[in-house]
């Protein structure tokens, strides 16, 4: 049965309430006292909760900073590894060039020289001359190879794209992600214009609406 009907029936059985002003005031005073006590409990609970929230937030901030520096470190290691890989490839290419030049000089040029020059001293001087003429070739070749690998920046752009893709995975760029992207772009030698072009490309590829993204950024700044 409904509580109000139960009350109606109970009141019928019991008769009128005590309306004596002194009793009413005493009752209201007790009620006021209870309300005050309840308010104090509520305030204390809320203060404790906000303190807990504050501490939890601080801990989160701290671990966020740690994560950020770990990511930066990883990024740094990754680019070091990449440049080491480029250097290794360049060294291999240079060795191949040197070997080819050596074979040419040893088996093609030198036999000719030995046939035409009788004087041993002159022969030695000519050999050294040819060898020193080949050194600039080797240097030029290795430079071309190395710059072909790094100057095109293909690897750097690829790495920046990968970073962008993982940052846009959830559709938004957090402050931390923005910091990492900026410092990585600088490390990869990408100009701000190039970096933002790549970013628009990635956003288009992932189907992220640029207008919506601006709105989100706007909200963050408020």
């Amino acid at each position, binding site marked *: *049965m*409904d*509580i*109000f009907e*139960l*009350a109606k*029936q*109970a*009141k019928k*059985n*019991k008769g009128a*309430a*005590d309306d004596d002003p002194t009793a009413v005031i005493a*009752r*209201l005073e*007790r*009620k006021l*006292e*209870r*309300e*005050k*006590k*309840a*308010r104090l*409990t*509520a305030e204390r*609970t*809320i203060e404790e909760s906000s303190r807990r929230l504050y501490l939890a937030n601080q801990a989160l901030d701290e671990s966020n900073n740690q994560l950020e520096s770990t990511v930066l470190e990883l990024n740094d290691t990754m680019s070091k590894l990449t440049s080491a890989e480029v250097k290794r490839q360049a060294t291999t290419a240079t060795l191949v060039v040197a070997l080819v030049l050596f074979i040419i000089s040893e088996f093609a040029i030198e036999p000719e020289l030995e046939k035409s020059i009788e004087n041993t001293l002159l022969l030695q001087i000519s050999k050294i001359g040819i060898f020193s003429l080949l050194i600039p070739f080797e240097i030029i070749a290795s430079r071309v190879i190395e710059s072909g690998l790094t100057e095109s920046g293909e690897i750097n752009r690829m790495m920046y794209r990968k970073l962008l893709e993982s940052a846009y995975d959830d559709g938004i760029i957090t402050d931390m992600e923005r910091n990492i992207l900026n410092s990585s772009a600088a490390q990869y030698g990408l100009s701000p214009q190039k970096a933002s072009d790549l970013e628009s490309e990635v956003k288009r590829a992932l189907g992220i609406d640029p207008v919506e993204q601006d709105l989100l950024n706007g909200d963050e700044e408020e």
Partner: protein
Amino acid sequence: MKGIVFREFIDMVEASFGDEMVDTIISSCDLESGGAYSAVGTYDHTELVQMVVALSGQTGVEVPTLVEAFGTYLFGRFLELFPVFFNHSTSFEFLDSIHDVVHVEVLKLYPDAGLPSFNSSVSADKKTLHFEYHSSRHFADLAVGLMKGAFAHWKEDVDIAIEDRTSGEVQVVMFTCTLNE
């Protein structure tokens, strides 16, 4: 038990029996909290039991009847305060979601809340709901009141068969609800 239940009980007694009754029952009980309840606090559930017993003594209404009426009143209040949990199309759907949805949300907000647990299942024809209540607080009557509040809200005519399966400390009650059409 969460303070909101105590607050709602006090408000209900005040609205139905008057603030004199609230004053009388609080004065007659030995309550650790002194009867000062805040919705964000947590209090010993035996205080609620004491107050219901005192209310029964004052009004002559049986304790189970009062607890059940409070359950129905509480359902109406929850509906007003947390409408987001009541977007189901039938009462059975709602009751079936309490343990896995509603209580999960409650625990997110109040990890220390000691909630009753429910095993529920709806029959294939959706006309029968088996609803097993487990609680160390022995408020099965409150659950009946809440269920009746739900049936009234969805304007359904439902019979409840109650079977007490308690064997130890924890109260276990199986409710078999049958929908009449």
